[in-house]
């Protein structure tokens, strides 16, 4: 377990074995197995209601009230970006960002993180004075500022416009390059998945239907034929006729 992998320990590993989660008599995850290596960047695709958030909540240990069984191993230091921004409405934006931070320079780091997501100057706003996309970026800043070993992000860019989204991609990539956290990113955008991830999973009927390793250089683009091939594979697996998409 303590094998040293280029400065990173294997504690960054995620292992899920025979995970079952369900609501009432309906199983959402049904004997789900997953292994993610330390420092791996995995994107998770799946139909709406397929259980992506359920999986993330299980990995984050937040589902003690959900029926189920299985074995989960995750690193100690993890961050979650929830599907909703989930800012504390009674704390100002900066206080929301530094919520999990300790140490004297917490506010400084929080300010820097806010600046990185393009919200410098909004530190003292109340969360409900922010636009939808701004709230989402605060949540992102909160998750990134603590430099986790495992980042569980549930559609962190869903409410962002194309340009802001690209900036956030850059931010995430940069953070990833710096600390090499293990990342599990839920997204609905196939392009985003192929652009960012080392590996793309597709969740269907409670199991992994597609497990695609993306073998592309760090600089990726629509122009690369392999990119388009990956894209097409995934869209087809999602049931989308490419001519429409």
């Amino acid at each position, binding site marked *: 377990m303590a094998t040293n992998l280029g400065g990173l320990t294997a504690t960054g590993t995620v292992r899920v074995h025979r995970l079952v989660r369900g609501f*009432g*008599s309906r199983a959402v995850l049904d004997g789900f197995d997953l292994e993610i290596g330390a420092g791996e960047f995995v994107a998770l695709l799946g139909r709406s209601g397929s259980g992506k958030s359920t999986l993330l909540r299980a990995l984050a240990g937040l589902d003690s009230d959900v*029926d*189920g*069984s299985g*074995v*989960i*191993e*995750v*690193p100690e230091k993890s961050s979650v970006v929830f599907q909703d921004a989930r800012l504390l409405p009674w704390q100002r934006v900066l206080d929301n960002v530094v919520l999990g931070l300790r140490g004297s320079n917490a506010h400084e780091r929080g300010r820097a993180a806010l600046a990185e997501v393009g919200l410098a100057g909004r530190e003292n706003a109340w969360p409900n004075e922010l636009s939808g996309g701004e709230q989402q970026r605060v949540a992102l800043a909160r998750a990134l500022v603590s430099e986790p070993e495992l980042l569980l992000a549930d559609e962190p860019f869903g409410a962002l416009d194309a340009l802001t989204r690209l900036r956030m991609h850059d931010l995430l990539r940069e953070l990833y390059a710096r600390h090499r956290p293990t990342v599990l990113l839920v997204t609905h955008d196939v392009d985003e998945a192929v652009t960012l991830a080392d590996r793309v999973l597709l969740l269907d009927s409670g199991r992994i239907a597609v497990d695609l390793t993306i073998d592309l250089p760090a600089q990726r683009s629509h122009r690369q034929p392999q990119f388009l091939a990956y894209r097409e594979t995934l869209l087809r697996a999602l049931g989308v006729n490419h001519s429409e998409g």
Partner: protein
Amino acid sequence: MTASVLARPQGTTTPSVRKPGRRLKPGRPIPLGAAIGPFLLLSVWAAGSAAGWIDPRTLSAPWTVVTTTGDLIADGRLQDNLAISAQRAGLGLVIGTVIGTVLAVVAGLSRWGEALLDGPIQIKRAIPSLALLPLLVLWFGIGEQMKVITITLGVFVPVYIHTHNGLRSIDSRYVELGESLRLPRAVFLRRIVLPGALPGFLLGMRFAVVNAWLALVVVEQINSTSGIGYMMQLAREYGQTDVIIVGLVLYGLLGLLSDGAVRLAQRRALSWRRTLAD
């Protein structure tokens, strides 16, 4: 989680590398937990009485209370007094709840309603009921009417304040939704305002039920020859400690039961909520 084919994750998840997250929630309810505190209280009382630390002239021993209760039941006094008191409290509770809710809605949804109603209600609430009693006697006599009115006054205040507060605290996003859907006022009331104010209303009811019982102590001193308030008043004047304690225990029980009933209703009616308590 009905007819679940799945087990809770408890045991099976255990071989995980880290503990399942820092548990900040209070955790699962302790079975029969609500009985522990009262039971402990009873034990202390019993132990103190048995060991002689508690002077039986000021606090009779539990067994004395049991035998006195037995006597009171045997000669029919307890159940008769309780029945008549329950009738008064129940009537006052129903009327007070209706009035409190209606006034809360009126004052909550209209600035004029609030301007007219809220101040006087706050004043009413601030005036000691013992001091108000002579006026009530003057206006409503010393008959059953005055008694029910006094109970009603004690009940409607918490219902009003809590419902009003609950209503005013409804998230404006839901009000906007109502406006965007052009809901007629009646539908807005039924679908958004009342359910949104329900948590507040129910908290108010927890005070209302207890207040209804408490008001009996005051009203049943006036021209009564029945009721548990009268029974206790009489016992106090005659210094019958054991009867007083029976009355207090009865009050404690009635309070616990009424409060428990409202909390049960709370749990049922607010089952849609996901809160710290779950």
